[in-house]
């Protein structure tokens, strides 16, 4: 290898590299400027990225300065926004229809490229062998794609290996050097079928085998090696392979994280329904208990007194009148009992509101990894309708942040100020400065306005989304239902 390099270098010298460079100047000069510009742009980008530590910054800036665009690409991938990863116990798979759709397309691609390769190889000695190898590979691909499941451990891991061996042999025998497309189809198939980790492993194996086969083939089969062509071939193959790998790999990853997000939202929704039901049941139990204790007792006494009074009416009118007065007093007492228990229930409801709110926020944290920080300062008891609308609004905001903004953090602030209660919800999601009033947001606004409140939204590019809700409250509300 060293010898080759050395020879190549000498070749360049004797060939007159200077002349070649002169010819290329119109391309190289602006090229250099653009390279330097891109370098400078990403160094600045990195410098201003305050999510990195000093050490990482120095590392990336140095890397970009030395290795230029490649390092910039590495930097961008490394600092990508970390997705909201859902903590879900069961393994999320992408929709099997999508996977099978890609599989079918890949089959078609394999067929077409195989035909091309065969046509190009007509008349060569290895013609029959290549056809056999490619057919085997094709059959293996179909079997693997349609019938092999994860449970068939042996076949599951063996088939792609066999496929790789077939295709690498074909590469070795091929005359026209057109088999690289088939290698890429096999690569795509493996990424499509296997989990990300397994796909990475097989891709690496395929990549190493493929590149070394090309090298061996060129060294063994070509009589005179043209160094330029040699390195070009390897370089082009390398770049194409990596690009195709990245394209399919990212696609798969994106599909998986979409599925995860979807699942997380679903659980969140289910839980909030459960929460609501639970709240309703406890509330009902409390109310039933109160009614049983207070109203039941006084009403019974009142009925007895009235019945006694009715019987006494013809016999002893003054005594009957006493009984009626007693019944009236009982009923009055019952009413005041109801009043105080209503007050008590309402007070308890407010407690429920706070705990319900905290529970909702902690559920959001738990299910989505979105970090929610809340500061809640309320003294005034809220009416049930106000509580419901606020809880609904927070739920809606959180869903929006996850679904549209891909947020990782959210903050809730609830404060009281004179006759108003103010709720502000903000996130750190992707926002483009535009607010799209969909059904959810419109519904939320209508609800808030229906109780005399108002809703404001704000979206600043790069800073996330903010919703502010103000509703009128009154210090004595809830206490004066009597």
């Amino acid at each position, binding site marked *: 290898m060293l010898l080759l390099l050395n020879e190549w270098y000498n070749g360049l010298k004797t060939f007159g590299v200077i002349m070649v460079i002169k010819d290329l100047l119109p391309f190289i000069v602006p090229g250099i400027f653009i390279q330097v510009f891109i370098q400078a742009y990403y160094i600045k980008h990195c410098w201003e990225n305050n999510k990195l530590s000093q050490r990482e910054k120095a590392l990336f800036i140095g890397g970009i300065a030395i290795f230029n665009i490649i390092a910039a690409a590495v930097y961008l991938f490394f600092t990508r926004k970390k997705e909201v990863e859902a903590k879900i116990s069961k393994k999320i798979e992408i929709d099997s229809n999508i996977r099978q759709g890609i599989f079918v397309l890949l089959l078609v691609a394999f067929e077409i490229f195989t035909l091309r390769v065969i046509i190009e190889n007509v008349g060569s000695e290895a013609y029959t062998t290549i056809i056999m190898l490619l057919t085997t590979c094709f059959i293996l691909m179909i079997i693997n794609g349609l019938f092999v499941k994860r449970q068939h451990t042996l076949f599951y891991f063996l088939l792609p290996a066999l496929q790789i061996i077939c295709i690498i042999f074909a590469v070795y025998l091929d005359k026209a050097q057109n088999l690289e497309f088939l290698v890429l189809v096999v690569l795509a198939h493996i990424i499509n079928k296997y989990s990300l980790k397994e796909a990475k492993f097989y891709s690496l194996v395929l990549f190493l085998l493929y590149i070394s086969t090309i090298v061996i083939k060129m060294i063994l089969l070509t009589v005179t090696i043209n160094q330029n062509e040699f390195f070009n071939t390897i370089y082009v193959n390398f770049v194409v392979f990596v690009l195709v790998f990245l394209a399919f790999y990212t696609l798969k990853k994106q599909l998986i994280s979409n599925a995860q997000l979807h699942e997380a939202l679903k659980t969140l929704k289910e839980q909030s329904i459960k929460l609501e039901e639970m709240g309703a049941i406890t509330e009902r139990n409390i109310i039933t208990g109160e009614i049983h204790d207070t109203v039941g007792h006084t009403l019974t006494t009142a009925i007895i007194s009235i019945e006694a009074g009715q019987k006494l009416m013809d016999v002893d009118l003054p005594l009957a009148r006493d009984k009626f007065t007693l019944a009236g007093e009982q009923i009055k007492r019952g009413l005041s009992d109801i009043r105080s228990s209503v007050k008590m229930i309402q007070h308890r409801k407010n407690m429920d509101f706070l705990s319900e709110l905290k529970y909702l926020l902690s559920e959001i944290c738990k299910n989505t990894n979105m970090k929610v920080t809340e500061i809640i300062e309320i003294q005034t008891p809220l009416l049930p*309708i106000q509580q419901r609308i606020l809880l609904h609004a927070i739920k809606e905001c959180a869903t929006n942040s996850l679904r549209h903004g891909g947020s990782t953090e959210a*903050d809730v*602030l609830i*404060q009281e100020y004179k006759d108003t209660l103010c709720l502000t919800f903000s996130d750190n999601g992707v926002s483009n400065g535009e607010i799209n009033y969909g059904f959810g947001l419109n519904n939320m606004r209508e609800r808030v306005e*229906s109780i005399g409140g108002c809703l404001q939204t704000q979206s600043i590019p790069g800073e996330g989304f903010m919703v502010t809700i103000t509703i009128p409250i009154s210090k004595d*509300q809830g206490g004066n239902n009597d």
Partner: protein
Amino acid sequence: MINVLLTDDQRIIRDGLRALLETYGDIHIVGEAANGEEAYRQTQILRPDIVLMDIRMPLMDGVEATRQIKKDFPKTVIIILTTFDDDEYIINAMTYGASGYLLKDISGDKLIDAIRDGIKGNIILPGLVAAKITSKLVSKKSLSITQGDFSEREIDIIQLMIKGKSNKEIAETVYLSLGTVKNYISQIYLKIDVNDRANAVIFFKEMEF
């Protein structure tokens, strides 16, 4: 004279309400309805100023009746009368344009107040008769605002804002998350009725914060 239509599926409640309301001189009961469909038909014929509407009724409930009446007769004021005040139905009815809701055990005087308030276009909630639109409530206050109108934490944040600190610096100083600081600042803007930081800082400098 305020023309009122009573809607409730229980006759005893309609009678009770009629007896109660007729003692007030400026109320005239124009009719009664036992369900949503009837309420809509009666509204069409009698054109009341105000409809007192029960939620749960056979044939057509109060929510649907509210939607239809507000659609065809938007000037009609609808007040929901309900036994349970934590009902999802109430929220729906209010988003369809009901002016508010009251609990059935409300006293006569409060009911009359609510009816008069409803006619004026105010929102009616139990214990909170005559709620005006909040933004107006808040904005009026900016004239007479003092330091006492802010919580301790808000005062800390305001002082840092005056010093020209960025949100991030403020967050680090007061040990809060960046989002929470943004939330606080947005609520401070609301209190003093400004839209941006520059005006807020000018406001606070003028009041010698």
